[in-house]
């Protein structure tokens, strides 16, 4: 079945460290996206025309663009046009953060908009400050509302990291190709075993994340 190549030399270890590269890129991007997404989403909720228009354009631009085109644009485009020399990993983190920030800000805006004004006002009426109101009343509700959709976004981001090999990053899929390539003669069936393993790795990561989210959702059901 082609699984035997995985046990040759350090192949399995290489595959795992490829997965780590993918996870590192997504984790950093997710963190950046959360920070900027929350900031941008909050700004959008102020409903200032200039911010609304600018963020709409940004959001639509990111949504229309295939992630791969964005990757090429940032990695090859900026290097050539602006003379900036950035590593492929930096370029992918930028692209994934741009994407994640756009999507996350829209989620934050939606969640904020769904909270009735009375929630703020009854908190103020109890003597709570604006800061206390956000920390104890609004943000916990926002997090609960956003959880399922953010998890969905995060898993989509993780899956999409498979594209970064197109700009030369050796992540799990690329490692897989290399292993298959190197064992073309000795194990002609390696493709199945290797890709199935890659599939399993992605599955395990995304499954763990979605189980964690299900657990929180259940805990917060009330």
């Amino acid at each position: 079945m082609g699984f035997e190549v995985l046990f040759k030399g350090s192949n399995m270890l290489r595959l795992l460290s490829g997965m780590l590269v993918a996870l590192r890129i997504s984790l950093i991007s997710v963190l950046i996206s959360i920070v900027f997404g929350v900031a941008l989403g909050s700004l959008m909720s102020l409903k200032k025309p200039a911010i609304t228009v600018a963020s709409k354009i940004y959001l639509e631009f990111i949504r229309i663009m295939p992630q791969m085109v964005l990757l090429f644009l940032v990695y090859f485009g900026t290097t050539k046009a602006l003379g900036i020399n950035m590593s492929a990993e930096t370029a992918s983190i930028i692209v994934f953060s741009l994407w994640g920030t756009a999507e996350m800000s829209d989620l934050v805006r939606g969640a904020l908009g769904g909270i009735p004004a009375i929630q703020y006002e009854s908190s103020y009426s109890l003597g709570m400050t604006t800061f206390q109101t956000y920390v104890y009343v609004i943000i916990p509700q926002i997090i609960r509302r956003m959880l399922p959709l953010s998890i969905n976004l995060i898993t989509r981001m993780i899956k999409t990291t498979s594209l970064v090999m197109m700009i030369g990053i050796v992540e799990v899929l690329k490692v897989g190709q290399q292993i298959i390539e190197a064992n073309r003669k000795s194990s002609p069936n390696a493709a199945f075993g290797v890709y199935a393993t890659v599939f399993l790795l992605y599955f395990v990561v995304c499954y763990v994340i979605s189980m964690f989210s299900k657990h929180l959702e259940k805990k917060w059901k009330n």
Partner: protein
Amino acid sequence: MEEILNISNLTKRYDDLVVLDHVNLSVKKGEVIVLVGTSGCGKSTFLRCINALEKIQEGKVSLDGEVINPAGGKLNTVRERIGMVFQSYDLFPHKTVLQNMILAPVKVKKINKKEAEKEALALLDRVGLLSKKDSYPHQLSGGQKQRVAIVRALMMHPEVLLLDEITAALDPEMVREVLDVVISLAREGRTMIIVTHELTFARAVADRMIFIDGGKIVEEGSPEEFFNHPKTDRLKKFLDSFSYD
């Protein structure tokens, strides 16, 4: 009796729309005032101005001599001294009944959690909801939620309680249980300003009735004068709009 709340020349505008036009009102300690008027006449706005949830353009609101909502000024920091209950969506959905009640006392008044809980449980017992202390708002009926909202406001020991149509969103069979709580608060001498469309309740609970129309207090008086001998045509017309004969 001594004055607790003073509203003088309160004027509230939204752009060109004058909602409240130089309104004056003095509320005595322990007095229960019921505010009525047609929809959109500015009753909610009036309560919100008192609690400094709205900026006002002219006049001022003072609580026990301290200005709490000056015209054009910064909104107050003594809101905790005035309690307010709204029509619905008051309770924080991610917190249990008990957590809802102790949040502000613990965070704002820095009261010890155990003590706050003890007081909360006593209040819940009083409104017949002790068994619901660990329930979440979505597990309560509308009437139960409003009773919790009232006792949550009481946890801050407010000097004045503002109630804005707190039974308007309830099914008819739940109105009574909430209004009974309000009546018991009136009996123990709480100062309250109540907006309601329940005129029978108003008659029972009010020390003074106030009718707002056109941004002004058009008529005020004891419930007996107000309902039985209205002086102005506008109030007569308003009261007539409630009867079907």
